[in-house]
């Protein structure tokens, strides 16, 4: 098992899937000749040529729709949208065409496209480059949403997404492309549903996804060492459909829940997870479930303000301590 970076894991998945199926194509801005903003498609242009590795014009809704149309006829496009902030422009085609076509055609057509995009708050990119919008995508029937927290998931989720017959939105993170982690040497397909126990614990369940899994893990270490609280960390790599059973089984074990999200609280992952807990196992709870979320503000440029807007591991520790009255 080799340690590779997140972007290398993505690149490997692209390469293997393109080699496996001549109908797999890659589309996006600067992904071909330039090798991709995040290097996820590096070298593919030379290997597979311009018909399959397509540098698109800056027309997010247009090229996403084009990829969706191609997928109607069995082509399997992997579309990279440089940033989720730009993916807003493609919501029309992704939501109105890809997510609904199977249903409104009575099962005659399907749109097996993959759309990958980098979200999250990075370093002082300002309000229009710092959106976290997984909450919007996960509310759309007919669209699968996954969000890898490590290179193994990044690799395996992309591979499964390419082969799956549904449209899949993969929510990545600006700050995670250089993250290192172990990826199996042999081919590996990660399930597009479910969740993972990233750390076992008995006292409280911390639910994270993508970057916030790392905050939860860090917080769990501190909680264990300094306060004797054993936190279980659940990695919700699948946001839609979300793993109701996995959420419930952890809460049944710990009787306490904190959801940690990089996004603003309203109508978000935290709201959804807590609603599920209330619906499925309210009487298992020892105390009210909590959300650790971003401040609901257009992300500021100023570094101090930016940091204050986004939660971190310390905020998670703080919240759990209060929960235990410590």
């Amino acid at each position, binding site marked *: 098992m080799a340690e590779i970076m997140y972007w290398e894991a993505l690149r490997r998945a692209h390469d293997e899937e393109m080699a496996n199926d001549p*109908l797999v*194509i890659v589309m996006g801005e600067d992904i071909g000749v330039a090798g991709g903003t995040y290097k996820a498609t590096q070298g593919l242009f030379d290997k597979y040529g311009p*018909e*399959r590795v*397509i540098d*698109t*014009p800056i*027309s997010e*809704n*247009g*090229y*996403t*729709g*084009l*990829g*969706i*149309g*191609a*997928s*109607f*006829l*069995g*082509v399997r496009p992997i579309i990279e949208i440089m940033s989720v902030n730009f993916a807003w422009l493609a919501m*029309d*085609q992704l939501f*109105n*065409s890809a997510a609904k*076509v*199977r*249903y*409104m*055609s*009575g*099962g*005659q*057509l*399907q749109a097996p496209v993959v759309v990958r995009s980098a979200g999250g708050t990075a370093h002082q990119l300002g309000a229009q480059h710092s959106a976290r919008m997984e909450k919007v995508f996960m509310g759309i*029937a*007919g669209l*699968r949403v996954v969000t890898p927290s490590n290179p193994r998931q990044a690799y*395996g989720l992309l591979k*499964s997404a390419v*082969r*799956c*017959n*549904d449209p899949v939105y993969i929510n990545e993170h600006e700050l995670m492309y250089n993250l290192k982690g172990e990826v199996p040497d042999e081919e590996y*397909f*990660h*399930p*597009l*549903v479910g969740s993972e126990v990233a750390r076992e614990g008995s006292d409280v369940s911390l639910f994270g996804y993508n970057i916030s899994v790392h905050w939860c893990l860090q917080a769990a270490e501190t909680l264990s060492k300094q306060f004797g609280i054993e936190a279980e960390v659940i990695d919700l790599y699948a946001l839609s*459909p979300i793993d109701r059973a996995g959420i419930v089984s952890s809460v049944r074990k710990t009787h306490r829940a904190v959801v940690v999200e990089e996004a603003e609280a309203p109508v978000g992952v935290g709201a959804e997870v807590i609603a599920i807990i209330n619906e499925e196992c309210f009487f298992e709870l020892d105390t009210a479930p909590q959300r650790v979320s971003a401040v609901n503000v257009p992300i500021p440029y100023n570094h101090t303000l930016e940091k204050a807007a986004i939660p971190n591991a310390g905020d998670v520790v703080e919240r759990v301590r209060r929960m235990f009255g410590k």
Partner: protein
Amino acid sequence: MNVADKKRLLREMLFARRFEERCYEAYVERKIGGFLHLYSGEEACAFGVLEAAKPGHDYVVTSYRDHVHAIKAGADPRKVMAELYARETGSSKGRGGSMHIFDVEHRFMGGYALVGGPFPLAAGMAKAVKMKGGDEIVVCFLGDAANNQGTFHESLNMAKLWDLPVLYVCENNLYGIGTRIDRSTAVIDQYKRVSGYNIPSAQEDGQDVEKVYQAAQKAVKHVRSGKGPYFLELMTYRYRGHSMSDSNAYRSKTEERMWSRRDPVIMLRDRLIEAGEITRDDYKNMDTEILDEIENEVIAFAESSPEPRVEELEKYILAENDPWVYGGGR
């Protein structure tokens, strides 16, 4: 086009007209719900173009005003009507409705309700055809007002950039709902707008099916020969309101009368009568036959079909039993 073809086309176009008018009645009777957009007056566009293409082989995609395109592409009119009646036997199993007719077996790839939505989908299907090396083309029918969407410009740019085999047909009926084209659009002649993308284009009388056919032949030949996209603008008029909820108060009687004198069905009929190919009685008999067929087969089928089962409300949201959802195994 030989005489036999013209006679057949007359019958097909008259059938389409009677089909749409029967939909109107069914809507008034509340048998059809939702939005209903009728094609009456514009028949020569779909029939002329698809007569020049290869329905069933070439891919067709359009807007919400889609019943007639679907039928000409090969869809069974009974299933189209059953869809409007929201029945399980409908072309989209009652899940789509009037605006979302699909018949993938005949390569009718759907009616879409977002104005301008099909532009990129059509280009994408053309990309797929090109990758697979087939000789199919994609024919995309949309209205004049759709050309003010970003998808129009984005798609034309990409279609030409990659020389995709797609024929864009603009059915210019001069209105987007109640807004006349000169009040929404800086350039009135739509075919001129595509020159900025280096795409060949033409404008033709959309009421004369023979002229449409000839113009479409040229367009289809261009696209099928691998030279890239083509844009054909057809000047036409819808006889009904935009949808059934439209009062149609924004158009003058003079204008409506002028266009009713250029009825595509009547123009073809009169031409065949003048040439001595059919008689008035032939036409009347044909009409009676069509009305009977629509009543006894099309409507009867829809009326007698079952509705979808509530237990199947959540079918078709996602793929069923797709092993890759579970990591390839299970």
